């Protein structure tokens, strides 16, 4: 056998590793959540009871799914105007100036800050600020978590938007300017319609990031196993409940936590797949 063939086989064999890891991942998660699935069935998804007391153990994922969705949606709503403005700053208004490169470097830096540091900053600075201005007594809850998540996902929401906004052909913009359009009108009528799919995709991918975020949320959401009722209500998220209870869990509780992990895996994968599909389809 010649070296060319060997290399080809080695490369192919390496690619199998990706299949192996992802396949085994799904398999282990499904296998691990079987005991819980046998016990609770599909009711697991719609039950909001989480009671690890031995004897009357009962587990349901609903309130964690709600906590994850509420915080992530809030984060997205806060992040979008910020990210969109930053994208326009970097890719349109101040394109190719030193200011744009400073802003984009700083936003990249935001992506480099580890999750736990966001959590700490949220806990010691943001939370105390929220208490000080009287929005909430303890400062924990959906709002605080959503706010810190928003800061965390801004860089993910901007990076792809920047590229798509920059890719809008200059001829189109110049045509609009020549008809007397103002900058805002060009942005609204030329740039957004042309970059829409890329911008949407980047926000969807950023949303996917927010869903899986663990420690920053764990430190701020309040970790109370109840249904969130409002912006300043405490709650719990899927990732947080795994992080918090995994150490002491065994048996049915462990299996239920793994089922929550499986659920989180499925949700983030679907969201990411939608984002990637939009990029592929319309880019």
């Amino acid at each position, binding site marked *: 056998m010649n070296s060319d063939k060997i290399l080809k086989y080695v490369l192919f064999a390496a690619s199998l590793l990706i299949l192996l890891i992802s396949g085994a991942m799904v398999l282990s998660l499904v296998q691990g959540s079987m005991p819980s699935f046998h016990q609770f069935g599909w009711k697991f998804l719609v039950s909001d009871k989480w009671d690890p007391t031995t004897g009357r153990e009962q587990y349901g994922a609903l309130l964690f799914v709600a906590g994850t969705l509420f915080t992530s949606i809030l984060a997205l709503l806060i992040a979008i105007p910020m990210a969109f403005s930053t994208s326009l700053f970097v890719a349109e208004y101040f394109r190719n100036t030193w200011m744009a490169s400073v802003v984009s470097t700083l936003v990249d830096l935001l992506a480099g800050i580890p999750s736990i540091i966001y959590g700490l900053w949220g806990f010691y600075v943001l939370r105390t600020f929220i208490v000080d201005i009287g929005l909430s007594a303890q400062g924990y809850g959906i709002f605080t978590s959503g706010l810190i998540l928003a800061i965390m996902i801004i860089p993910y929401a901007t990076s792809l938007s920047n590229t798509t906004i920059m890719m809008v052909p200059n001829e189109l913009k110049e045509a609009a300017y020549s008809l007397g359009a103002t900058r805002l009108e060009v942005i609204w009528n030329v740039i957004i319609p042309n970059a829409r799919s890329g911008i949407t995709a980047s926000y969807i991918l950023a949303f996917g990031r927010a869903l899986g975020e663990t420690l920053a949320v764990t430190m701020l959401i309040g970790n109370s196993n109840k249904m969130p009722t409002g912006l300043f209500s405490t709650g719990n998220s899927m990732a947080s409940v795994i*992080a918090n209870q995994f150490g002491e869990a065994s048996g049915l509780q462990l299996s239920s936590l793994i089922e929550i992990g499986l659920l989180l895996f499925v949700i983030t994968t679907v969201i990411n797949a939608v984002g990637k599909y939009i990029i592929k389809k319309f880019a």
Partner: protein
Amino acid sequence: MNEINLLLENKRSSIITDTFKGRKIKDNLFLSIVILFSLITISMVFLIIGTMVFKGFHQINFAFFTQTPPNTFEAMMAKSSGKLIPGGIINGITGSLYMVALASILAIPFGVLIGIYLYENTKKRYASIIRDITDVLQGVPSIVIGLIVYLWVVVNVTKGYSAFAGSVALSIMMLPLIVRSTEESLKMIPDSLKEAAIALGTPYYKVVLRVLVPTSFTGLMTGILLAISRILGETAPLMLTALGNPAINWNVVKPSSAVPLLIWQFYNDPNMVDLIWSSTLFLMGFVLILNLLAKWIAASRKF
């Protein structure tokens, strides 16, 4: 008649200037909002890093890099007498470096090989499936990776929390990053270079090893450094795999600490609060240096 015309003319021009003024005002207003929101966004960087530097710098001393953390009692005593908390985070530093090194050894060779595979078989259906699955893998939440590695390694291989389990978790997080960065940096090599090598009769494996990999070396390095900087701060997967250790540990089958794990521990112990900020400052500094190094290497690359 003339007067009416004049009146109409005035009226019309005032309408035109009014709407133009309105449009101009809207335009400026929007620009101000864009600038304001961008400033708010970047001010977050300064707020967060500023807090770390301001609160953390006075704990950074020689002991911080050479000693293990104090116990709660020692920390409480030091705090009540107004002294600096003794001890440091050496077990976290060694643990982080050890696990990240091990993770790199596991992930880099495979990641580069898979990246080369994807580059060489761009058009194949199988390759595009692998690429999609790699993207999926990159999007899996870190806590889920921790959960899975717990089921694989902690339960079945090392029969307990271990540095090895932590490394496996980190390597799974690294792998997709390296695969994609390898493929992207290979794509940037001009085809002519590859064609020249093939035209000279170079065997395919030599084209890969002697032309493709060396030319994209800076690109590969950038990707690797960014991947390392990304996993260095990972906490959640390590909580489920490496657990933590109050002492320095070099044994792969024993629990190990890491800087982010220590930060989490300090956070849960009110007496240790002062150590939190110096540890985050250290971690952030480390991540930042790797990022800057990656940027610097990327800026110096030719292809």
